[in-house]
């Protein structure tokens, strides 16, 4: 199974530059998620890999083979790349039955009839759509259509499988099932998969590696844990996570910010040029008072403004010195709206960003030394 390499890739439509400068490497057999808000260039990237869009400059290679490079005038047509692509809309051919849809690629590859039928039946069985083989796409539900779209690509067993938000039209339960299905397929065939989504949970649950994109540039490439716990910049920190991360802008006049500035200046004078601090909602816990704070912890007094149950967990809105922050807990809260409490954050759970919005890595080191 080949990997995919994008080197210094740019894509523009007229004056509008959709992809600014993209270097990305997808390892052989890897499950990579392209994650980002709509319009960030993730679908464009996927379509360039498929060959449905051409590059404006740069180089795109699959394995050893350069498939698109304007500088050397090389371009390999999508039909010759041997990839599989599943569209958000599924794009099933309405005039063909399910079986004909699935065997389309095999027929094109001139696979002998007996083998073709076996292969088609196998893949339809493994996705549980065998009983619909004689039906037309319009007679199937969304989830079933989605499986057909997948089966159609899997039947030819492509080296690279590209998925463009394939689960976004499904209901929550089906989406969960299909995620498991996709993971199973990936384990079974060890296909290289590039998966485009704007749903962070989907990316978190599926991917080996996540590439977060915004406005045509790669923001961070890392494991799901990396992305969540050590976001490379403010954008990643704020895009990933729900309820969203609490950001304290340094230089602000709020009491809490002042508190945070005092804390960092006192405990970690070696960290400088701080622009803001981010605190994940689940890194916050309520304590009875100042005395319950450990020396290395950051904390402040707060008033419980609202408690929002979300089924199995609770979001608590805290009012502290003119700032509203959210915390998230899986333990039924014993406090009530209007209670005055203290909250605490362990120092190593602080995400420190510089004035440009980039993560200060030195801060992570400092915290871990302090914790040790």
């Amino acid at each position, binding site marked *: 199974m080949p990997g995919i390499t994008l*080197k210094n*890739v740019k894509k523009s439509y007229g004056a509008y530059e959709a992809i600014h400068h993209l270097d990305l490497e997808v390892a052989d057999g890897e499950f990579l998620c392209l994650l980002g808000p709509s319009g960030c260039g993730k679908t464009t990237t996927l379509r360039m890999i498929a060959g*449905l869009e051409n590059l404006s*400059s740069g*180089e795109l290679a699959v394995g050893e083979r350069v498939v698109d490079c304007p500088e050397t*005038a090389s371009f390999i047509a999508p039909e010759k790349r041997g990839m599989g692509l599943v*569209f958000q809309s599924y794009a099933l*051919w309405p005039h063909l039955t399910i079986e004909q849809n699935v065997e389309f690629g095999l027929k094109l590859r001139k696979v002998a009839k007996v083998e073709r039928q076996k292969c088609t039946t196998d893949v339809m069985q493994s996705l549980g759509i065998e009983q619909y083989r004689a039906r037309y796409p319009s007679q199937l539900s969304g989830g079933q259509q989605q499986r057909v779209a997948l089966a159609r*690509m899997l039947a030819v067993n492509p080296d690279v499988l590209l998925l463009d938000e394939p689960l976004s039209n499904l209901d929550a339960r089906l989406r969960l099932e299909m995620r498991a299905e996709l993971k199973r397929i990936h384990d079974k065939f060890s296909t290289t998969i590039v998966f485009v989504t704007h749903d962070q949970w989907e990316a978190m649950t599926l991917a080996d590696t996540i590439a977060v994109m915004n406005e045509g540039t790669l923001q961070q490439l890392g494991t799901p844990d990396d992305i969540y716990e050590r976001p490379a910049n403010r954008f990643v920190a704020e895009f990933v996570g729900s309820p969203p991360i609490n950001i304290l802008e340094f230089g602000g006049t709020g009491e809490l910010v002042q508190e945070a500035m005092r804390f960092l200046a006192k405990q970690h004078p070696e960290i400088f040029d701080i622009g803001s601090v981010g605190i994940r909602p689940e890194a916050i816990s309520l304590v009875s008072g100042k005395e319950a704070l450990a020396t290395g912890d950051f904390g402040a007094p707060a008033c419980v403004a609202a408690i929002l149950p979300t089924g199995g967990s609770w979001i608590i809105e805290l009012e502290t010195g003119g700032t509203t922050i959210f915390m998230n807990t899986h333990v039924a809260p014993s406090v009530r709206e209007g209670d005055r409490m203290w909250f605490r954050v362990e120092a190593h759970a602080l995400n420190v960003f510089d004035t440009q919005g980039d993560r200060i890595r030195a801060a992570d080191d400092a915290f871990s030394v302090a914790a040790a």
Partner: protein
Amino acid sequence: MSKASDISGQTGGSGRITRLRYRTRIAMREPTTLIGLFMAALFTYLIVVPIISILLDAVQTQFGDARRTDTEVGEWTSYYLNRTFFSPIARDMFWEPLRNTLSVALGAIAVSLFVGGILAWLISRTDMFARRWFATALIVPYMLPAWTFALAWTTLFKNRTVGGQQGWFEAMGFTPPDWLAYGQVPITIILALHYTPFIILLFGSALRRFDSQLEDSAQMLGASRSRIAWSIILPLMKPALISAIVLIFAKCLGEFGVAYVLGLPVKFDVLATSLYRNLGSRQTGVAGVLAASIMILGIMTLLIDAYLVREARKFVTVGSKGSMNRLTQLRKLRLPAAGFAALIFSISVGLPVLTLALSTVMHVPARFTWENFTLDYWLGTGLDTVALQQGILLTPELWSAAWNTLWIVGSASVVSGLLGLLVGYAVVRTPLRPLATFLRQVTFFPYLVPGIAFAAAYLSLFAVQRGPVPALYGTMAILILALIADQMPYASRAGISAMMQLGKEPEEAAQVAGSGWFHRMTRIVVPIQKGSLVTGVLLPFISGIKGLSLFVVLAVPSTDVLTTYSLRLVDYNYTQAANAVVLIIAALAYFGTVAAQKLTKTNLAEGLGG
């Protein structure tokens, strides 16, 4: 920096060439652009060149006019412009016909607005009796050729101003005055009845989509019913009304048949008949000026329409989610309302068709005695006439005209349907946007040019040999070509919207699966578009069968189609035979439309304007 930028650095000057090679490779990888370029060239020749040719005719000295214009043949001259607009005969040739055209068109619009507006409201917003049946029945006049009604009218009202068989009223002892028998009044009434379905369809569908909640909100705020109608409903209906009015106006501009049948006896000319007269008397230059005038009027009208509709649509939110359509209870007026609809139906369909049908089976008009009825005019032999001594069904000319119709209209429709799909494909898929824009506009252009002016343009270009293209006048080829070009607006619209609806993805899915361009076209695109292709062929076919103005200029006796054949019979005063042929055409058009709707499950409103 990465390897990619190194490469471009090394190649330096040749970098641009590489880039160009890359772009060409991408563009030519698929034949889409090539097809688009071919289409663009084809339609430039079939649409733009004839129009330029007739425009040049208007300002260049024509063959035989050298002495009059004092210039050599082919040189610039303002002679024809002067002659058409300022000479002593300008009044008869241009200004009177213009006035007549405008007054007939405006009269027809006023009447059809009044009648159609009421009917549209009754059908779509009230609980009138049999309103579903009326919704279909009242559209029928549009399926029949307009001059069917003109012939029915003359059959009833004809007086001694022209010869031939008597009109029914005359035969019964009442002589209709000229103003009732011919000219402005009957033409206006007939056009109004013929185009009333436009109002019913366009205005009716806007009314149906109108959200009752908008009315409710106004009512909650204390507005009276008339206040609601005036300041809520009417402004929101404006775009639909404007479209319908403009469409009727544009159609009236090019209307030939009705004016020809009913205007000729009292020298009531409209622009279309004046153009026809000038073509007939070989006044090519003046015909060019007249054709250009008709075109400019048509283009201006549709530009105004585009502007007004854009202005009016800015605030339209009709058809939002949760839209409701509540019917008005007519109560005591239910029966009178249905009676009104039935009256209009019988005037606009029942009476004319019945008159025509009866006239073909009667020896002497309006004598309803048993021995006066006969099938001789359909099936008889040895009739007591100068020529045409057998029933129409036994006349070989009818069958050759029918065969010509089928062959000419059929092949033109099939070709334009296919070309329409290809144009749609090229427009939607080509990465070359200017090409797409050009194709879209050039194929739409004939819509702005009334058929008779377009036919004149074809005559101007193809009457003589030009380069490798032989003189086509008198051949079927010129009819087929003109018909294709004339049908392109509908065919290309249908093709473009079908391709838009299909979207790129089914095709891209096939492409990624390994399917090449040709394979994709034959296995994915065309099979999926089968339905719209059938519609794209059938609708032009039906409108082609009943079309007259294009053929009347370009057809000669050997290439007669049913419409021109019946007009010839009218000219020779074979009333029964002419009416019989018109009935055949009307039946073909009606049953063809019904069959097409059944077959493709399309709505009439979509085929509107065809």
